[in-house]
């Protein structure tokens, strides 16, 4: 028996539950009540309001990703310079909060921002419902996804390269920017992807932390499915999902362009 046969159960699974479901959004985008039509789809595409919402979501996702990278890179870098065993232990500590579902953690943040912090600081109103609060909780939720791939890449760096760089007269700063940073690009790429993609579709955080003030693309899609689908109309939501999918695919393609290791193993 050839070993490649072992992949066959998975391939069947993949076709049934990864490939086939994708066809459904295309089907529902162009099919309203059993007839094929571009009208609904076109209406959605030309709705300026939806594009403005998308733009804002991209801005927020971009901000989240940038802050995550700025906060996460030093963490991963410090960890990668520690003793392996200690670093392994601490990296587990960064991973563990994810075991408590993120909705529960977001809920806790809401309590903190609504009552605890304002009371402590003597504010009269709550801190929820501001763009800062939404950004902070998004960063909070996705920071582990940035730290993990970065740490994995950085800890695999060949330390002799750093020594070589130093021996050749480069100072710490130069070594970092000329050697470490370029070599950690695969980690940055997968970290950025793992933060940007979920951030662009987040709808729980705006709902729980944003007091409903921030209508992001995820909320718009959720709304489209939850409200309009009540009328038997999946078209708008499906079209918006396709737009989103295209955005994500473009951004991953761009990111992969920077990354030569295409196997994707660097995510872990």
């Amino acid at each position, binding site marked *: *028996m050839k*070993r*490649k046969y*072992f*992949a066959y*159960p*998975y*391939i069947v*699974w*993949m076709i049934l*539950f*990864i*490939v086939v*479901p994708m066809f*459904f*959004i295309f089907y529902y985008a162009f099919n309203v009540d059993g007839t094929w039509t571009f009208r609904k789809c076109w209406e959605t595409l030309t709705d300026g309001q939806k594009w403005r919402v998308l733009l804002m979501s991209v801005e927020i996702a971009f901000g989240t990703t940038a802050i995550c990278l700025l*906060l996460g890179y030093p*963490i991963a870098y410090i960890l990668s310079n520690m003793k392996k*065993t200690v670093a392994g*232990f*601490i990296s*587990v500590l*960064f*991973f*563990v909060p*994810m*075991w408590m*579902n*993120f*909705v*529960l*953690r977001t*809920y*806790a*943040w809401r*309590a*903190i921002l*609504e009552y*605890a912090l304002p009371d402590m600081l003597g504010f009269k109103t709550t801190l929820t419902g501001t763009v800062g609060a939404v950004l902070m909780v998004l960063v909070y939720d996705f*920071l*582990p996804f940035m730290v993990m791939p970065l740490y994995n890449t950085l800890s695999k760096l060949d330390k002799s390269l750093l020594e070589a760089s130093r021996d050749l007269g480069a100072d710490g700063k130069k070594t970092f920017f000329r050697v470490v940073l370029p070599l950690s690009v695969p980690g940055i790429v997968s970290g950025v992807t*793992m933060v940007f*993609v*979920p951030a662009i*579709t987040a*709808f*729980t955080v705006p709902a729980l932390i944003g007091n409903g003030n921030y209508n992001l693309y*995820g909320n718009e*899609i959720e709304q489209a*499915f939850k409200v309009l689908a009540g009328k038997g109309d*999946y078209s708008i939501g*499906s079209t918006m999902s396709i737009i*989103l*999918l295209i955005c*994500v695919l473009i951004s991953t393609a761009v990111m992969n362009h920077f990354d030569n290791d295409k*196997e*994707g*193993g660097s*995510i*872990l």
Partner: protein
Amino acid sequence: MKKLGRSLKYVYLGFMLLFLYLPIIYLIVFSFNDFTTGSGRRISYSNLGKWNGCTLANYGTVFSGDAGSSLLLTLEIALVSSVIATVIGTAAAIGINSMRKRPRNVVVNVSQLPMVNPDLVTGITFMMLFAFVNGLLSKIGFQISDFAKLLIAHISFSIPYVIFSVLPRLKQSSDLLYEAALDLGCSPIQALLKAVIPDIMPGISSGFIMALTMSLDDFVVSYFVADRIQPLSVYIYSNTAHGAKGVNPALATIIFIPLVSMLLIVNLRRLAKEREYEIQNKKVKMKK
């Protein structure tokens, strides 16, 4: 100067960890809060800002209502889906590793889809798929249950994480291992179990943990997929975004403490063992 730099590093790490654990600590502290006084006849856990005194009452009612069954469901789904995902994913990785370049690239690229696909889209596509299939099946009087729906969805989005943590291990391990085992008279299954699997075990276990984490952390997919039953995350969401009662903070402790202490014990023991090993090594060196 160097010392200052090092302690700065630790301060930064500690600060970040505090940031990550702050809401959890907050929930755990407030799980001992007395919610009965102050707010009328009904207990409202939304009142997470006022400290009314210490009580253990919240732990007595922690599983009342749907919270218990939701937690149970979440744990079941997480465990079963990650075990199945690990089995299918590991087999898939072994198969993919021995494929020729082109089909292999196709499979690898498609497998990446669920990882880059927004949760929201994944959830919606599953919702449509199951509605369609159940529509067909209802004609013969059969239905996919909500549990099965959740299970399938969770397995699907966690398999890729297993595959991509096993693949790199496979690359490091020798191709000849499997052939050698076959030559020595093993059946293919035996060869797999006795020769290949032990070699890639670290990859498998980290894949399993990833799958488990993804399943435990999921909300969006479950939200769209399940109708009749509510995993914990959906329960929490509907009770916080739309519920006046809020969620009993004792739930946080109940979930968090056992899992974390288990993890810490295992990791600390490994740390201690390795330190012992190091000390012994040093002794050996000194003797030399």
